[in-house]
């Protein structure tokens, strides 16, 4: 059944219109919904509307453009479904549907074995995560004899602790599969068979589901410190592993995928710490950031000339500066901890401060002119303002952070891990040292499809 180009564009146009209309109508239609749902829903619709509008041109010549736009629309509907529903059964169904639809889009190109393998790999990862989710929701529903989310969460204190812990761990597995944490990262890292707009939506809208489910069921996690600590560990691991992948990949799309693994790890870690507002703001801002990078990935031709390697070394903060900033950051953290204000959001906030300091100081040192210095300072101030504004919004939406489930000093250890690696990384960059061979090969191989190996 060949549809004519005119019909095809009409269908695509309808999807685009529906998405923009949905975005505009969202605050009115869902005014009673939880702020968390509103924010994640708005992000999903915004990115989806942009992606669909972009695709009117980009996917114009696609042999299966109809299927593309319909699947895209259904995927967005499924994501909105689990984001807004109060019913656990609907939650599970929408959740499972969204995974299946995304896998369809990863394998969108017909007759391409690689795409089929990649789709199947995603389905396998989702199957494990979905099973865990269904099991967790079933435990909750059976125990409270209710399918209503609020009711279930309200009756948590009556649940036996081991059961809560098991449920929380199952939810964590579900989150890890969606957010591409280790050992589930492979599906995301080998999903480059998806058309570019799908990747944009996937990295901006879909992978956030992991963080969303942890935030939605935050009370379950808070009742299970082991699960929270596990989230910190797997989050930290993915945060660092993903950056490693990102820095070694010579292709733009998998490099971005490595970055997503890392960013999702940081977000899951924040959830584990209990820094909910920071995690939610990370979901939103990273979603926009990554969708922008993916849609613009065609611009990477000739980008080599401005790479970190060939750029004047002065553009990198010097190792001494890096070390000084790291030491100062750790010093502030220590002071705060000793003083007794070691809150969950200390890690994201202090890393933000270190980033601002490194960018400003490194940039000022290398700025070509006085005017450039002023503009740089202005730009950094603006970005800090955006960041602070975003955090304020998510704080207002989610209320207070959870109390740490770990002793305060672990925050220092986490910070030290990020900062220590950073100092090492900048030192290697400045000296143009390559990574150790074994590590390099491992990172380069990460996510290779098994289908194209023996």
């Amino acid at each position, binding site marked *: 059944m060949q549809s004519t180009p005119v019909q095809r564009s009409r269908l695509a146009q309808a999807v685009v219109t529906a998405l923009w209309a949905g975005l505009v109508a969202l605050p009115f239609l869902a005014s009673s919904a939880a702020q968390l749902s509103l924010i994640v829903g708005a992000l999903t619709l915004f990115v989806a509307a942009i992606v669909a509008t972009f695709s009117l*041109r980009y996917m114009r010549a696609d042999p299966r453009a109809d299927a593309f736009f319909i699947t895209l629309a259904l995927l967005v509907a499924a994501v909105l479904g689990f984001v807004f529903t109060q019913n656990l059964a609907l939650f599970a169904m929408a959740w499972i549907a969204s995974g299946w639809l995304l896998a369809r889009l990863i394998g969108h190109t017909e007759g391409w074995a*690689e795409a089929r393998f990649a789709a199947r790999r995603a389905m396998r990862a989702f199957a494990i995560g979905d099973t865990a989710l269904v099991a967790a929701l079933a435990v909750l529903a059976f125990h409270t004899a209710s399918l209503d989310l609020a009711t279930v969460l309200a009756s948590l204190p009556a649940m036996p602790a081991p059961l809560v812990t098991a449920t929380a761990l199952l939810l964590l597995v579900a989150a890890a599969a969606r957010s591409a944490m280790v050992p589930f990262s492979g599906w995301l890292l080998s999903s480059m068979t998806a058309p570019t707009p799908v990747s944009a939506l996937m990295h901006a809208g879909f992978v956030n589901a992991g963080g969303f489910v942890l935030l939605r069921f935050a009370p379950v996690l808070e009742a299970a410190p082991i699960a929270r600590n596990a989230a910190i560990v797997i989050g930290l691991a993915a945060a660092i592993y993903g950056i490693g992948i990102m820095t070694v990949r010579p292709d733009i799309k998998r490099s971005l995928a490595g970055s997503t693994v890392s960013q999702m790890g940081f977000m899951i870690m924040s959830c584990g710490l209990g820094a909910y507002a920071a995690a939610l703001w990370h979901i939103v801002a990273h979603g926009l950031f990554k969708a922008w990078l993916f849609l613009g990935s065609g611009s990477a031709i000739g980008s080599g000339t401005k790479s970190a390697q060939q750029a004047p070394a002065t553009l990198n903060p010097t190792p001494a500066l890096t070390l000084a900033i790291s030491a100062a950051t750790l010093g502030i953290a220590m002071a705060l901890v000793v003083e007794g204000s070691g809150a969950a959001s200390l890690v994201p906030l202090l890393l933000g401060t270190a980033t601002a300091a490194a960018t400003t100081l490194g940039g000022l040192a290398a700025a070509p002119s006085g005017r450039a210095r002023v503009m740089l300072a202005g730009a950094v101030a603006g970005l800090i303002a955006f960041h602070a504004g975003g955090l304020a919004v998510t704080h207002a939406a989610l209320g207070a952070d959870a109390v740490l489930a770990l002793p305060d000093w672990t925050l220092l250890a986490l910070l030290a891990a990020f900062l220590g690696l950073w100092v090492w990384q900048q030192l290697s960059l400045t000296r143009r040292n390559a990574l150790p061979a074994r590590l390099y090969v491992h990172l380069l191989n990460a996510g290779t499809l098994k289908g194209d190996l023996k």
Partner: protein
Amino acid sequence: MNMMTAFPAPHAVLTRTEIAGIVALAARAVPPLWPLESAIAVNPLAGLEDLAFEDAVKIGAQRFGARESLPLAQWRKLLAAGRIDERCLRDAAIRHIGGLEMAYMPIAPKLTRLDLLMARLLHLPCDGNGDASPKAPPATPDAAYVAKWCAAFFDQGLAASPMPYRELGLYRAVLALAPHDPQFHALTADTAAHLLLTVPRDPLEAIAEALAVLEIGEADQLEHLSGLVARLPGWAGHIRWRNEHADADAAAGAPATMADLLALWLLLERGGAVAAQSGVTVTTDPTDALARHFALSAPLPGAVVTIAALDEAELGALFMTAAEWSYRNALAPRLEAAARDAPDAANASPAPEAQLVFCIDVRSEPFRRALEAEGNYETLGYAGFFGLPIAVQKFGDARRKRFLPVLLSPQHDVGEAAVPGREQDAATLAATQAQVRQASGLFDNAKCGTATAFATAEAAGPLAGAVMAARTIAPRLVNRLSSAFAPRRAETLAPALHRKDCGTAVFTLAEKVGYASALFRLTGLSPSTARIVALVGHGGSAVNNPYAAALDCGACGGHAGGSNARVLATMLNEPDVRTGLAAQGIALPEETWFIAAEHNTTTDEVTVFDQASLPASHRADLAALCASLVRAGDANRNRRASLLGRTADDLLTGAVHWGEVRPEWGLSGNAAFIVGPRWLTQDTDLEGRAFLHSYEWRDDPDGTALTTILTAPMVVAQWINCQYLFSTVDNDRYGSGDKVTQNVVGGIGVLQGNGGDLKVGLPRQSLFMDDGTPYHVPQRLLAVVHAPLARVEAVVRANDILARLFGKGWVTLMVIDPETGKSRRWATDRELSPPALSENDA
């Protein structure tokens, strides 16, 4: 059994020199592949151009696992759409059968061979679903492995952390990393780990040892190595580009030769990891269908079996011939008629208001036609680098770029400097560039730091969201706003004919006069020039598009041609150069002023450069010309919009939209290369399918200009033609596939999906319409020359490359005799010859 066979002589290990010789020959299996930053069209079968076209296509298909022709279903669609004349298909079928008599002789009641063949061509079911771009089978594990290391090794800085040991060269770097690579061990036999320690470190020695160990006899060595080179045509082609066409700094710190690549392949082969290439395609036997179609019963006539035995490739070849004949039959009579009505030199039309020299590019022709309709303008065609073998280092660029055809190497380094009086703006531009560089450097660094990556994403997110929405919804507004705050580059900077550091001239006076006079010698431009002569380069507009440079001027090395036009116009306005020209008999009127311009082939807007330096006396002339250019642009944009199935206004949006995958059709549709004066083609709408090189045979008695035109611009046109042809025939193997799943690698090219070979050729969107039928009809170039037969024949016979291209059927040569106005076609070696110039048969 005697003693001699009991102890087989060990295979002699070849010396390094011998191996180097074989490797150099094997490297010719693939053409060089230019990085997309300066995309250059090449014939994917360039290594087989010594063979007849038909044989080369067959061998290429085996070597690269490619299709030989478009699928039959696609050809039928082109026929149904009227893009091929059915009578020509019938003629091609008759020729294939062996002439009219054979074709029409009944072989059964009311049945001829022609009926059988036409039924196969037009009606019988065909193989496959007719999808023009089926995806390749997944890269075999061995190829995926080699491609993985090539991508890491040749990265131009996309990865922040480079591959270790690159300075050792590709082969040795992989030897050093493979012991740590589980994929290597999974791929190879257990002995391979030991092999990693013992194989020679020198790639040539390693090849020699491998050939001996694998017992590949001397007779098979070249074929074996060629086969390995062709396994990854993209990366092998990249190696050829790096070593043969790039400036030395492109390979700095990471040397690699074809020997590295082959040593790596042979290492895998010794490890037992190289899979045999399977190129077997199962096709259905159409004999029964043919018999049913004509209600024949056994025993079937022999002709049925013969015609049933034709495969789709052979049927496709008949369609291609038909497409070529359809085109030629429509064009030849019109050109012959024009040649017979040659304008008389005595009562020539009044002197033109202005003369404009465009690039030979097929996209110039419709614009020229539109402009000619606007007034008394004379237009000419000349290679778009305007004969200047220069490299240009743009203001703020770290490297020079080659603004010349790849057949030449740069003789002059041209920089850019502020236009007099615009020094302040130039300083502003420089400051802006420095700031942008700094900001992007800071951003790139921050987004991959383990401490800074997260806050960077969070801080940049809202801004990214706003930019994303603006670029998607209002790209033209964004474009206007971003250009409103910066000085216009073209008005601020100009190519500098003096070196910045020492002030010495880039060109000597003699060189300037030489380049200036070539314009007249090669195009036949009369020295009685109009008040304004415009040299019009061209470039395309595309954003966020890896193939943007493929829309630029190929003669300028895949860059926009404005710089070359500006340099030559500047020279031609210099009094010394005018004096020098006069000394050569080219005395230009004093009131002639040369201006440079650039035609944007995506938007059909024309930028006129350096208007400030125009004498006041010529202002009115230029204003009139500019108004005509705008109107011609509007007309041509409307025409092109209908071909793209969009509105003319949408073309302007597409030119700046980051989601646009087909800003224009580029050189799709190219079919002919016409050498002759403009009046020959002026009354024929060539539909943007012809390269037009101006040429006046009377001014070229010894054929030197013709030799240059045929051996340089025409050869480039043939590369372009073959790239479009083969990219359409098999878009996955010879082309780069669908744009939407492409993945930029190393800053130099694209992969499909997760990895595999660096893609060659053009993407699907550049060649096929939205519904999947080809916009570009695959057909070989038709070269038309307006000159006396004897002179053309002498030129062809004196140049091996021409004798080969015309003789082996890569290009069809048609000569239009100026005296008789009759056309003659150069016979291929296969056809009966002599005489080489036979009566035009089709």
